[in-house]
């Protein structure tokens, strides 16, 4: 019975994560998400962890107990949900109705959704995660924080109290997010990471690939679906110990893995939005917002994000500045680089 209840909580946590990403994404102006649930999900994911990074870093620096961070974060999420209820209720209801109608009507979409869920299950049912040294630290830290009601003040492997969080990982708050969820949902850290977080991440990854496909093939469904599955197949067949496929398949929950397999294609999707909408004389706000939040929240996942995310944004945006010499775009480009630059300065100064 206890195991059943635990899995009910695990399933609730998966739904909660996905709903909250959409909730946070829906709060952005309509011009940004254009009433698209996928746009809300992807930009919402970026914004969700960007806001968490700001709140959690403050709490971590102050050394407050974990339950304070949990209370703050859930207050934020409740406020976001309340704002959605007041200001976005109708729009969200319309979006969900429209999405259900499309899923019922279009076999390609139905197939994509079912296959993505099956694929996510396939990924999470593997328990061969290769790196015990990293997993032991990351998940051990989450379990220790939740058990001791502290923010990274108990050593992951050792289990004794420490005076301050590990300096090297100070800017990374993703273990603290998991600790909050472990504390609130009463699920073991192993299940939070290897099932809940991994499952939702695979779905967000698939949604991102789908979004890239719609932008590349102008919403032609069959081509988009084909693109998604060929790309996924190439990723799954590109195994190397240091490559993205390794992180995606074996270490789906790890911060650096998320940065590699989720932030990189998301930045491509944001760029494609800016590029295609720019061609049509529109602003591509979804892309700009997404990039901004990716720069702000990416560092929550790993220190490498401090230089890899700006580099990814650089290769797309600066190449675009060559052929589209627009002052407005230059201004937007500089703005999206601001959070990334701020993290870099903070990292170097520490």
């Amino acid at each position: 019975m206890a195991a059943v209840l635990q899995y009910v909580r695990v399933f609730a946590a998966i739904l909660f994560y996905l709903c909250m990403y959409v909730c946070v994404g829906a709060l952005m102006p309509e011009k940004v998400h254009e009433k698209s649930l996928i746009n809300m999900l992807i930009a919402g994911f970026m914004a969700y962890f960007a806001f968490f990074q700001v709140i959690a870093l403050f709490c971590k620096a102050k050394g407050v107990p974990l339950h304070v961070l949990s209370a703050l974060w859930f207050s934020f999420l409740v406020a976001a949900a309340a704002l959605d209820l007041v200001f976005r209720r109708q729009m969200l209801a319309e979006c969900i109705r429209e999405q259900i109608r499309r899923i019922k009507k279009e076999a390609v979409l139905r197939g994509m959704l079912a296959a993505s869920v099956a694929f996510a299950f396939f990924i999470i049912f593997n328990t061969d995660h290769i790196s015990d040294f990293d997993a032991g630290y990351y998940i051990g830290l989450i379990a220790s924080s939740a058990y001791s009601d502290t923010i990274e003040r108990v050593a992951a492997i050792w289990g004794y109290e420490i005076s301050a969080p590990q300096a090297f990982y100070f800017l990374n708050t993703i273990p603290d997010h998991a600790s909050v969820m472990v504390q609130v949902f009463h699920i073991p850290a192993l299940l939070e990471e290897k099932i809940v977080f991994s499952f939702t991440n695979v779905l967000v990854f698939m949604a991102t690939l789908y979004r890239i496909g719609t932008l590349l093939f102008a919403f032609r469904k069959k081509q988009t679906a084909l693109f998604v599955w060929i790309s996924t197949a190439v990723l799954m067949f590109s195994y190397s110990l240091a490559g993205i496929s390794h992180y995606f398949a074996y270490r789906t929950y790890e911060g650096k893995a998320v940065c590699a397999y989720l932030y990189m294609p998301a930045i491509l999707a944001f760029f494609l939005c800016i590029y295609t909408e720019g061609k049509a004389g529109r602003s591509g706000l979804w892309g700009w917002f997404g990039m901004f939040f990716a720069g702000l929240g990416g560092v929550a996942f790993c220190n490498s994000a401090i230089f890899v995310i700006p580099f990814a944004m650089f290769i797309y945006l600066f190449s675009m500045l060559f052929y589209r010499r627009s002052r407005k775009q230059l201004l937007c480009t500089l703005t999206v680089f601001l959070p990334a630059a701020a993290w870099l300065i903070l990292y170097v100064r520490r």
Partner: protein
Amino acid sequence: MGRIISFLKIFGTYSGKNHIWVLALAALIFLAVKGTKDERRIFVWPVLCALCVLNPLTVSLIPDSSTIGDRFIRFFWVLPFYELVGYTAVLLAGKCRRKTGRAAVIVLTAAAVVLTGNMVFFGKDVPSYELPDNSQYTDDDFIALKEILHADGIERPVVLYDGHLMLTYRMYDPSVRSVFSREGLYRLTTMTQEELYASDTQKAMQLIAGFYYYHDFSIPLESFEKAAAVKGTDYIVTAFNSPLNEIFSEAGFEISGETSLYRVWKLPEAPAS
């Protein structure tokens, strides 16, 4: 030349010398030569832009010891190789007028991916796909160990266990403390026994590491016991095939319990002095 070789080595490590990258290169060249202006701007320009960092000169300029130098390989993450292959395959399929032609392109692409690539979970020299042993996503032994380590009701017991347990057990049960820290474990795995003895490692830890980890039985059992007591050790976990079992058994240590792989010993209480 040395710079180029060093750069190629880093890329070789990143790609795992997986031949699927040939497909990505072919797709890039195809789009560069035959692609439209938009396709070149979306895929080719950014890759060219990436070359301003991903090149042999940059590798030689960034010191290996710096954080960025140490993780230079992660700059390769930005290359959109799987999206590139996916897009080009769909593009080529779309150029065929007949359904059979389109199907042929897809089948050929799938074949090329399978033949050139190495699949995660099921490929050659690849960690295998392993289903969970139980609903807790941990080893069955860990579940049994948790029962044993908490049977006496000691709050946050201090446990001396081996490398694998040291690394992974607290993911499942954070209510125990380990004699070795992460740094201690790092020292054990990177130093020889002699180096450890010569290092500034605490004397008690040297004795524990020497006796328990390196099986240096020139260290008297009493010294090990005292050192373990100094570190507040409540339990010692040994593998079934460990030579320590015989020594502990002869010394009259009490067995707290056994799992399929491990034996848990309770450290005798030090006599009051």
